């Protein structure tokens, strides 16, 4: 028994002696910030892409810079570039670069790097950014005219080159990447011009960033960023509550809002990260090939009920315009909820319930659809189950198939689905070039009016023209949607305000990005930091107490059970002892 006793005592001592980790710094000039992130994203080169959950471009862009600030801003804001001037039809652009910018390794940043980057993205394997060089717009050439001037030539007019393309593509150092043949097996820590250097990366464990003191906009506000990778949501928020991390990159689930709001020093802020849940449909499968049928389905979905029930009210109803309501490119349109009308449409289309079983028939076949949803997202499963009930009202049967993400994408790529639940990411909901591309490739959208508008869009030589055309395209969606957008969830983020409160809610990005850490960014972007604006209202008490009460009751019940068993057995037998 001795060694066991010693072991137990040792363990107890270990627990008692351990210092309470965490605790927050109070100063403005912050020495260290600990940010828990939900997923490993590789070594953070532009090629180390991983699908959601988790931040991606926000992390790579701590290290890398783009020529313009960000693709979701209203106006192009120069960053590594100082200006970009198009020719008359916006097919050729002359871009002037900042002087005196250096790479993390001390080499000078020049026009050669920019030209090289575009060539590299075009020639190499596809990544999250390469479509900007190879698809929309097709960049024919990027040429360094002198050390600080680059000339871009597009195949067709590219009026959004400075607003979107140059604002999305991280620039790579030529002197390093010209020797990299296989960007996906490149495992060195990346070198960029950005405000932070990645100094340590432990796979599946953590990142460590250090401030780049020579940053061209001056040193960032936080000296060192530690980024532990905490995949489990409950553990992650627990780490925030107990002060072991200062903020978490996962947005706060609606059911946690109340409890976090009450936690001391923890504040919530709406981060405006573009997000949506929409249903793709396969228009090759009858009866989904009929526009009237799709329209009836769309009308039968009670989006408000989804927002109220699944998101507990923390979100906005989906719009037929597809893009995010906070995006500059969004056309305000409301979805119609009218089950009566939906029934009439179906009746008129000859899709009626002929055998009286409550399910309509189309061409003699009962209308039974299936929707495929990711098995690892309970929110999307709940949503699908609610829609099943809503469609039942109009006599359409819907079956929910929850699949692992790999199977899900395989089924979608093979077009082996009827409806598919899909999470809209900022890149899709805020970037019109990605949107135009996705309309065909992802959503299989096609109708004659759209084709016409699209070819006009490709010929348009000003942002205003493109914006107007995109708005006209979105107007088509009201009667003929490319997908059913169900809702746009709010994206609230929680942070410890005593550790750092310089967070900047940037449209499309949330609060965890380099601009939150660069003093000048607030003014450049015209966005207030959370320290300047009021944060979200804190909620009434009750949540935490209820949890304690529940746990307490459970413990008491267990104790009572144990005592009961003990007594009963004691009474029954006392003779059979050793």
């Amino acid at each position, binding site marked *: 028994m001795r060694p066991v006793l010693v072991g137990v005592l040792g363990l107890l001592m*270990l*627990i008692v002696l*351990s210092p309470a*980790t*965490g605790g927050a710094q109070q100063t403005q000039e912050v020495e260290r910030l*600990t940010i*828990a992130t939900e997923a*490993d994203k*590789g070594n953070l080169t532009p090629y180390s*892409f*991983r*699908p959601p959950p988790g931040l991606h471009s926000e992390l790579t862009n701590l290290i890398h810079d783009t020529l313009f600030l960000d693709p979701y801003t209203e106006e192009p804001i120069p960053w590594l570039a100082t200006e970009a001037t198009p020719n008359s039809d916006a097919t050729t652009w002359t871009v002037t670069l900042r002087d005196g910018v250096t790479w993390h390794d001390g080499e000078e940043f020049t026009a050669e790097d920019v030209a090289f980057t575009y060539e590299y993205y075009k020639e*190499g*394997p*596809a990544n*999250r950014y390469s479509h900007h060089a190879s698809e929309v717009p097709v960049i024919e050439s990027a040429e360094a005219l002198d050390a600080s001037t680059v000339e871009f030539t597009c195949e067709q007019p590219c009026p959004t080159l400075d607003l979107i393309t140059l604002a999305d593509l991280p620039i790579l150092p030529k002197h390093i990447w010209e020797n990299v043949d296989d960007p*996906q*097996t*490149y495992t060195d820590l990346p070198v960029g011009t950005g405000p932070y250097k990645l100094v340590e990366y*432990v*796979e*599946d*464990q*953590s990142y*460590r960033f250090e401030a780049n003191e020579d940053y061209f906009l001056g040193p960032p506000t936080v000296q060192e960023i530690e980024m*532990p*990778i*905490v*995949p*489990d949501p*409950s*553990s*992650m928020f*627990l*780490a925030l*509550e*107990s*002060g*072991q991390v200062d903020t978490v990159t996962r947005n706060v689930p609606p059911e946690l809002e109340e409890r976090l709001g009450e936690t001391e020093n923890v504040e919530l802020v709406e981060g405006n990260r573009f997000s949506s849940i929409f249903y793709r449909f396969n228009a090759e499968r009858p009866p989904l090939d009929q526009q009237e049928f799709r329209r009836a389905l769309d009308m039968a979905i009670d989006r408000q009920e989804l927002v109220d029930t699944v998101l507990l009210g923390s979100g906005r109803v989906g719009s037929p315009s597809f893009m995010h309501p906070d995006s500059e490119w969004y056309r305000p349109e409301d979805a119609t909820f009218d089950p009566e009308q939906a029934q009439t449409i179906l009746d008129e289309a000859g899709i009626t319930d002929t055998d009286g079983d409550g399910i309509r028939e189309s061409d003699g076949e009962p209308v039974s659809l299936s929707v495929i949803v990711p098995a690892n997202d309970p929110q999307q499963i709940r949503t699908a189950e609610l829609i099943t009930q809503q469609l039942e009202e109009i006599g359409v049967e819907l079956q929910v198939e929850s699949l*692992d*993400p*790999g*199977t899900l*994408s*395989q*089924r979608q*790529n093979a077009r082996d689905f009827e409806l598919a639940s899909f999470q809209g*990411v900022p890149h899709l909901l805020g970037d019109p070039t990605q949107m135009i591309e*996705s309309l065909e*490739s*992802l959503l299989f959208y096609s109708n004659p009016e759209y084709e016409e508008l699209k070819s006009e869009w490709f010929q348009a030589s000003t942002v205003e023209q493109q914006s107007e055309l995109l708005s006209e395209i979105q107007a088509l969606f009201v009667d003929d949607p490319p997908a059913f957008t169900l809702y746009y969830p709010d994206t609230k983020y929680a942070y410890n305000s005593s550790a750092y409160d310089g967070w900047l809610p940037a449209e499309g990005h949330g609060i965890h990005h380099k601009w939150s850490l660069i003093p000048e960014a607030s003014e450049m972007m015209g966005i207030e930091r959370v320290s300047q604006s009021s944060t979200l209202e804190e909620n009434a008490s009750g949540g935490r107490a209820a949890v304690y009460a529940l746990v307490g009751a459970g413990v008491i019940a*267990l104790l009572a059970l*144990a005592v009961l*068993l*003990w007594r009963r*057995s*004691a009474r029954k*037998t006392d003779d*059979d002892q*050793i």
Partner: protein
Amino acid sequence: MAQYALVVLVAVSLNFAIPRLAPGTPIDYLVPSEQVATITPEQRERVLAQFGLEKPLAEQYWLYLTGIFQGDLGYSTQQGRPVVDMLLERLPWTLVLVRGAITLSLIIGAGAGFLSAARRGGRMEVGGLAFFMFLDSMPPFWIGMLLLVLFSGYLNLLPVFGALPLTGAGGGFGLTFEVAQRLVLPLLTLTLVRAGWLFLVARSSLAGELSEDYIVMAEAKGLSRRRVVLGHGVRNALLPLMTAVAVEAGTVVGGATVVETVFSYPGLGRLIYESVLSRDYPVLQGAFLLLAVGVIAANFLADLLYPIIDPRTRTADVR
């Protein structure tokens, strides 16, 4: 021996086939979902070519087989790193956690199980049975979460996540202490999870032995209760327990996935889970190979130990 070689070969081939039979390919995880439909076949090919996954299956299989003998398991499609390096990095964490948990749960679970069987009908037995059955029925993530909420949240004594401190604690004792601190909760969770099962095995096997005639015989000889139970009963009851542990050796690594996720622990379980999601064929092949070899080795070891514990299983030539 030949038998074991055959089992290994079958396992190796299954490791190659199973990841590829699952729907989906690594490419779905390398290109954003909003773009996967837009990239051209040439671009697809170029991405896959970096990992040799564009080659015909037969050729991939041959390269995989020959690679094993050269200690080369290919490159991870997700990390771009050699699979061997990744496995070697994760293995120590899993070994510490799982071996620790097996040992502790064996001591606690089997110890209590034997005690409970020896005192059948006593208070200890009923209370212990209720407690361990309760443990056995609790899902691991739930136990883990409760411990986390208590020790890290409410008492704020232990770190919530990770295996290593974020800021280097230097080396030596400081680092050992930090690592030990982070090991406590996952180890405790996994121990509790396994202890319930081992308790039940130990209890029922000893209870079975104690009702045998030879025990009556031993008692009739006037041996002390202590000698009867420990010398005769427990010795025979060890056999089923050993088999259980040998079989568990593999499943514990699989079962550790959940615990590793809750505690953000960088073990093999998490690596396998992530690799299944991303269809990272080379890592899956490598990790399954390691698991298969581990389970087979554990069984082999058990086979070797049987004759030592139980003379009845000795073959003539051993004797």
